[in-house]
């Protein structure tokens, strides 16, 4: 007997996803945006696990592992790029200050 | 051996050779500074011979379609290389070749900067035009239709005058815009045919038999009309023409005015009228209105131009109005008139552009107010100029008069007021042509006139040929009219059907 039913986990993951999405749209600090991104990805990962539990199917957990790995890589690369930007002398992490690329 | 593919491919091949010959390294090896020109000339002569063979093979007009060539191209979409020749296309190809030859004699030998490329582009345009006149596969027609734009664009944009690039762009965009509408119409027609017959084909003859509801056929016809109207040009979409003609180098102007405009007229006859006769008949009043508007508008603006080339260009608009009028007058007579007018206008206006180009080359200006009294300085050039100006105003006895008269006559049967209005255009055309003659050749020159080289005899000979054609066309148009009558896509006899069903 699963502790959570699919509907509850759906609700939970949707809320988590929305929180991440809101963070992504509202926050302007690059690090926080990365964190929001991870929240979104992990919400999806949890959804996969919950759905896998609902269908008694292990592939949901496989997907979970993949998502975990790729979210980790994405965060790593993101941090690396932020470091690069920082090292190149962009003091703030505000996403709106990037203005080198304008048509 | 079928001459039709050779007609299309020969100019391209010759142009390629000319291009190669024009490469600086190659030119140095050849030790001839005008090698591209010579090669182009040879190509044209060869082309003429081929055309002659094609003409003489069917002297008796046993069948309406004189030659046929077919080869699969994209079988999955029912596209094939289908080339057919009837009197109309033959006549127009002749016109193209004559003008091209004249061009080579008069205008292009001096082109030194990248002469090879120039001649290649010239011949490529010619190939595109000839292909357009011959193609009876709608896809192929569209292919050539688009293809001839590119070299012309480059010709104008690179070798043209001061404002060349804007003009070239305008020319390309307008034509292409019309072309895309035509593309949709072609596709629509093909799809209608596919739905009715279950056969996917772009064959002109097959598509002609497509059953269409009045609305659909009207829509499709309008798509075709848009493309041809831009090319012809019909009044509201004519704005590219004055710029393009003015800015183009002489040879390109000649090709534009003499030949490219005719593809519009050709298309209207071949596709609008032949494929959608009912829709065309319903559309005729509007088309005739547009034609008259073109005649009056072109002539009126022409009267107030100071730029020689611009004046001729607006004159062209006016003359092409007659073609439109004739095509849509729904009578064989009007159609014949339109064809004669196309031929005559091609010759006379082309020659006028040649003369104007020569003048510009010598005087370094196109402003009529700064040119004058050339008669004294260059009698041969001036006489040629006067002849063609008079021809284009519709002097009886010359080709233009025959065409315009036939058109007016046919129009009179349909609608006398329109005919009256159109003949007002004739009066106006007399005004601007005489103004041209007067101010350039006759009026005294303000400043001192440096001695300048007149046309040499060889060039006069080329012009003389054109004059001769005009005179014959004017005095005895009947053979031309029978010769150049367009053939219907519908088989008149069972035998005819056999001949083309393949």
């Amino acid at each position, binding site marked *: 007997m699963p502790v959570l039913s699919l509907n509850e986990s759906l609700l939970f993951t949707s809320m988590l996803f929305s929180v991440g999405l809101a963070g992504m749209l509202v926050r302007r600090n690059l690090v926080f945006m990365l964190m929001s991104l991870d929240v979104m990805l992990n919400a999806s990962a949890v959804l996969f696990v919950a759905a896998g539990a609902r269908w008694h199917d292990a592939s949901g957990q496989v997907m979970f*592992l993949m998502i975990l*790995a790729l979210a*980790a890589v994405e*965060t*790593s690369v993101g*941090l690396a790029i932020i470091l690069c930007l920082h090292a190149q002398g962009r003091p703030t992490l505000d996403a709106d200050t990037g203005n080198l690329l304008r048509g | 051996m079928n001459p039709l593919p050779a007609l299309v491919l020969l100019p391209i091949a010759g142009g390629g050779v000319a291009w190669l010959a024009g490469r600086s390294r190659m030119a140095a090896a050849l030790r001839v500074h005008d090698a591209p020109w010579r090669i182009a000339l040879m190509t044209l002569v060869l082309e003429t011979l081929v055309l002659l063979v094609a003409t003489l093979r069917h002297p008796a007009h046993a069948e309406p379609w004189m030659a046929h060539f077919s080869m699969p191209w994209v079988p999955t979409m029912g596209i094939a290389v289908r080339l057919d020749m009837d009197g109309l296309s033959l006549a127009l190809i002749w016109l193209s070749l004559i003008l091209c030859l004249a061009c080579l004699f008069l205008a292009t030998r001096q082109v030194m900067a990248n002469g090879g490329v120039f001649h290649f582009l010239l011949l490529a345009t010619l190939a595109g035009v000839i292909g357009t006149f011959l193609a009876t596969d709608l896809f192929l027609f569209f292919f050539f239709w688009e293809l001839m734009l590119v070299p012309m664009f480059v010709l104008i944009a690179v070798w043209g005058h001061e404002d060349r690039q804007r003009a070239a762009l305008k020319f390309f965009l307008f034509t292409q815009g019309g072309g895309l509408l035509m593309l949709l119409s072609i596709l629509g027609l093909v799809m209608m045919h596919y739905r009715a017959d279950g056969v996917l084909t772009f064959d002109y003859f097959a598509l002609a038999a497509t059953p269409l509801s009045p609305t659909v056929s009207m829509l499709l016809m309008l798509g075709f009309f848009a493309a041809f109207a831009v090319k012809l040009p019909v009044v509201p979409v004519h704005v590219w023409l004055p710029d393009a003609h003015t800015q183009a180098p002489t040879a390109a102007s000649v090709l534009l005015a003499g030949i490219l405009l005719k593809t519009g007229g050709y298309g209207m006859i071949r596709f609008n009228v032949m494929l959608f006769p009912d829709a065309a008949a319903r559309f005729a009043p509007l088309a005739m209105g547009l034609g008259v508007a073109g005649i009056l508008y072109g002539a009126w603006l022409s009267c107030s131009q100071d730029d020689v080339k611009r004046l001729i260009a607006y004159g062209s608009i006016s003359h092409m109005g007659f073609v439109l009028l004739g095509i849509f007058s729904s009578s064989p007579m009007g159609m014949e008139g339109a064809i004669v007018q196309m031929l005559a206008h091609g010759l006379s206006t082309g020659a006028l552009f040649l003369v104007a180009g020569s003048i510009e080359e010598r005087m370094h200006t196109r402003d009529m107010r700064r040119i004058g009294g050339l008669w004294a300085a260059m009698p041969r050039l001036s006489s040629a100029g006067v002849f063609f100006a008079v021809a284009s105003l519709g002097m009886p006895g010359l080709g233009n008069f025959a065409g315009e008269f036939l058109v007016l006559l046919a129009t009179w049967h349909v609608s006398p007021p329109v005919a009256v209005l159109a003949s007002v255009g004739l009066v106006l055309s007399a005004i601007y042509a005489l103004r041209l003659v007067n101010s350039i050749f006759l009026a005294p020159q303000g400043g001192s006139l440096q001695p300048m080289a007149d046309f040499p005899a060889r060039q006069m000979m080329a012009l003389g040929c054109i004059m001769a054609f005009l005179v014959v066309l004017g005095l005895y148009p009947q053979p031309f009219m029978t010769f150049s009558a367009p053939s219907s896509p519908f088989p008149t006899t069972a035998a005819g059907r056999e001949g083309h069903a393949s």
Partner: protein
Amino acid sequence: MENASDIWSVFIYAAAIGVLLACMLGLSALTGTRRRESAGGPSLSTPFESGIIPTGSAYLRLPAQYYLVAMFFVIFDVETAFLFTWGTVVTEVGWIGYGAAMAFIAFLAIPLAYLWRAGALDWGPRPRFRTPDGDGKVPAP
């Protein structure tokens, strides 16, 4: 879960620890001696730096090496997760699974060798990338 009681024990355990920690923190707040801040003297309210008066912000720019380690951790630790899934079923999945796992380990080992050679695992002020002639010698300071 094999039995849900395990979970509940863990929850009870966690609650007990929570209470305990709260008690400890609260207790020390209650029992500690009170003194006014000023009474502690100025040295109480400056960060400890072995007797030197601190200058500048404490938030230094740390060497990028720390971030590199963080990334390696994230990546290698997650890769371990993949190996763990294989770990419990080694014999069940047979030679194909074994081959896959070995390939995976090889795919971990080769990047590790790459990182090693690229200098990402070295600490201290050394050139991070070898010179193109590839001798890998550290230039004399």
